[in-house]
């Protein structure tokens, strides 16, 4: 019987595949990407959708990798529609042509989130390792608009493209986009690997905040701008995923069920896997999901903090990555003994002048190899390294 004190999840992110034509240096996929042969089958994903709906999930995010690299995507969207789920496609847009978009519209797709690395080709190509992506994305945006689908433009901010924020917001407004997400890179997976080259400076951050405010004022009532601050410059942590295993869960390409996309970095936890485990048993019964749920796991001073049910202690993966212990304070919090150190790290890295990016690539083990490193042509440093 399900534990009545635990709320059912509201949304699930399905990482259908780790395959992707882009090789973004800020990708939050794990360093050890899942090869195609280990991906769940169409029937398995449909069973995931059935269980999600039964469990009380309302929204499904089809993500990856590039979810459009799965040829059965229209079939999965159609299945989601059939069981009453709101479906969101998180895509780079570079594989989107009229025929494939038509199939997705017919399948009942509710919304498309289209990511941009910038409108300037040189920067966008260097960040994504994909030539001509910016133009392809503009074409994809026009197609989605023409099809009458709801669209969110997602701009992932790094030190390289922060200066393009004004241009991106102007473009979005000119295109009549109703929702823009300005998301500073979250430093997990490949992004963590490339942190020194991606971390925006404090000055860039101030300019971004001012621009977002100005554009919010200018576009009130027609464009909603969601702004995600970079964690490292914060004083209080974000409620990561709305709290560990409180609202969301992810299913990885091979069926591993996790509370967030970076959770597999917590090696001491054993995560259940679909179809051996159902979504319900993962959510309600697995020790990994209950490990950091709620407030019982919290150390002091979190336990006696007024904000403990607001930020739920921040991010466990970040606590592990930056403080060496998944059960301690998220160093983003000003009360963490590691906080000063982390802010200094961000400041130092943002001014390091190190612009070398390791673009993501398929590997069966964690890698520190340099064969896929690409020099970035950075405006301030002239020609790249």
């Amino acid at each position: 019987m399900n534990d009545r004190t635990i709320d059912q999840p509201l949304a699930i992110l399905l990482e259908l595949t780790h395959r992707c034509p882009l090789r973004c240096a800020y990708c939050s996929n794990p360093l050890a990407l899942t090869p195609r042969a280990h991906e769940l089958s169409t029937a398995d994903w449909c069973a995931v959708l059935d269980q999600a709906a039964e469990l009380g999930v309302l929204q499904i995010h089809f993500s990856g990798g590039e979810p459009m690299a799965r040829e059965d995507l229209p079939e999965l969207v159609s299945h989601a529609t059939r069981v009453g789920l709101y479906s969101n496609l998180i895509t780079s847009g570079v594989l989107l042509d009229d025929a494939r978009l038509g199939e997705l519209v017919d399948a009942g797709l509710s919304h498309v989130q289209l990511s941009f690395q910038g409108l300037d080709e040189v920067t966008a190509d260097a960040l994504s390792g994909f030539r001509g992506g910016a133009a392809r994305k503009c074409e994809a945006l026009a197609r989605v608009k023409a099809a009458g689908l709801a669209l969110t433009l997602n701009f992932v901010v790094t030190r390289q493209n922060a200066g393009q924020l004004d241009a991106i917001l102007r473009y979005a407004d000119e295109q009549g986009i109703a929702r823009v997400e300005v998301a500073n890179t979250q430093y997990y997976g490949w992004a963590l690997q490339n942190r020194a080259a991606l971390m925006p400076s404090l000055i860039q951050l101030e300019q971004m905040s001012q621009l977002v405010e100005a554009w919010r004022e200018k576009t009130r009532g027609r464009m909603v701008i969601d702004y995600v601050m970079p964690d490292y410059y914060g004083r209080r942590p974000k409620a990561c995923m709305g709290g560990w295993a409180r609202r969301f869960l992810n299913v990885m390409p091979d069926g591993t069920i996790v509370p967030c996309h970076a959770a597999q970095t917590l090696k001491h936890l054993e995560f259940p896997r679909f179809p051996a485990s159902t979504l319900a048993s993962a959510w309600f019964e697995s020790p990994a999901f209950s490990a950091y749920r709620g407030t019982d796991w919290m150390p002091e001073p979190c336990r006696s903090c007024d904000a403990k049910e607001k930020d739920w202690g921040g991010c466990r993966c970040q606590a592990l990555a930056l403080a060496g212990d998944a059960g301690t304070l998220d160093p983003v919090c000003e009360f963490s003994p590691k906080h000063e150190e982390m802010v200094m790290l961000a400041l130092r890295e943002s001014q390091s002048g190190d612009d070398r990016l390791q673009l993501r690539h398929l590997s069966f083990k964690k890698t520190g190899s340099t064969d896929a490193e690409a020099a970035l042509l950075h405006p301030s440093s002239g020609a790249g390294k």
Partner: protein
Amino acid sequence: MLTLESRVRLAPGTRLQEDTVRQRWVLLGPERLLVLDDIARLIIERSDNQTVGTVCEALASEFDAPLDTIQTDVLALLTSMSEKGFLRYE
């Protein structure tokens, strides 16, 4: 600005849906969710193809409530939903 003459409709990508597991009604939009109480649901359902003013008049007579209070409340509710991106109006 949203006025009594405005006609509102759900924004593209927004839908009204019963959340059967939790026994409530919600508006679902891009990565967002708005839980509706009975009154909010009624207003959304009635707003289809009607001016805000017409909806308010119907509610005032149906619930035997003062029209100006209803108008203030409905305009505030719809404005907030519109600013959050759930509604469009013309």
